[in-house]
């Protein structure tokens, strides 16, 4: 049976922060492990920190309280103070897949005196579904559909 596939639009977000683009870029990257919400991790143990290595080709990963590192992706473009392009390689099953490429682009634009607009775009989300079998298997697990629906319910 054929079914129509939804091609999800990119997720786009904008916020303004009261600092220069240079400082905003620095806080976003160098202090990533400080501000990143503790609830957002994929490793088995609670999140101790998360790291964006400061260079193109650098790794993007979390560190659990048990010391284990868990890859999220890597740095595709490192262009301070205006642009950061990250590869998000976490699939719909909440696991790291080295061959999966979705992109998170973050731009930092001066917005008047002492303010910076931060625009974030998470795109190529349709690629999360390319390995349909894997995702189908995850549908019935807690990490898949039921888990996602529980997250919705909890968040609402």
């Amino acid at each position, binding site marked *: 049976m054929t079914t129509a596939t939804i091609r*999800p639009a990119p997720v786009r977000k904008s916020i303004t922060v009261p600092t220069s683009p240079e400082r905003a870029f620095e806080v976003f990257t160098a202090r990533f492990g400080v501000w990143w919400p503790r609830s957002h991790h994929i490793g088995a143990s609670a999140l101790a920190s998360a790291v964006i290595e400061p260079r193109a080709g650098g790794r993007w990963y979390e560190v659990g309280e048990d010391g284990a590192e868990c890859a999220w992706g890597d740095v595709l473009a490192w262009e301070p103070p205006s642009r950061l392009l990250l590869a998000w390689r976490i699939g719909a099953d909440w696991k790291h897949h080295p061959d999966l490429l979705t992109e998170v682009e973050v731009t930092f634009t001066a917005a008047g005196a002492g303010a910076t607009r931060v625009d974030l775009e998470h795109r190529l989300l349709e690629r999360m579904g390319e390995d349909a079998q894997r995702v189908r298997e995850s549908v019935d697990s807690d990490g898949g559909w039921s888990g996602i629906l529980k997250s919705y319910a909890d968040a*609402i």
Partner: protein
Amino acid sequence: MTYGNAAFAALADPTRRRVLERLAAGPKAVGEIAEGLPVSRPAVSQHLKVLKEAGLVTDRAEGARRIYAIDPAGLGAMRAWLDQFWDAALNAFQAEVERLAMEEDAKA
């Protein structure tokens, strides 16, 4: 925190979550979806309309019937989740910038 996103609002309703759970098992017509749910068939149609507008289900004609389906990879839900996820993450980032600015002001 508020979620302006349509997919999120669509899933705030427990019946709609049950409709989606049923569709996760495979494409179905309205009658099949409504079976065993404690709501009328027109009500299910209304829920499907909301889910469709939120991009969480698609429909197609099969003879005189409409068959509803969720994309097999659950991408609509994934996207809705990410939408909320990035809101929370950027709010946390903004709070950190503001906290640092206050700290620096206090030192100055």
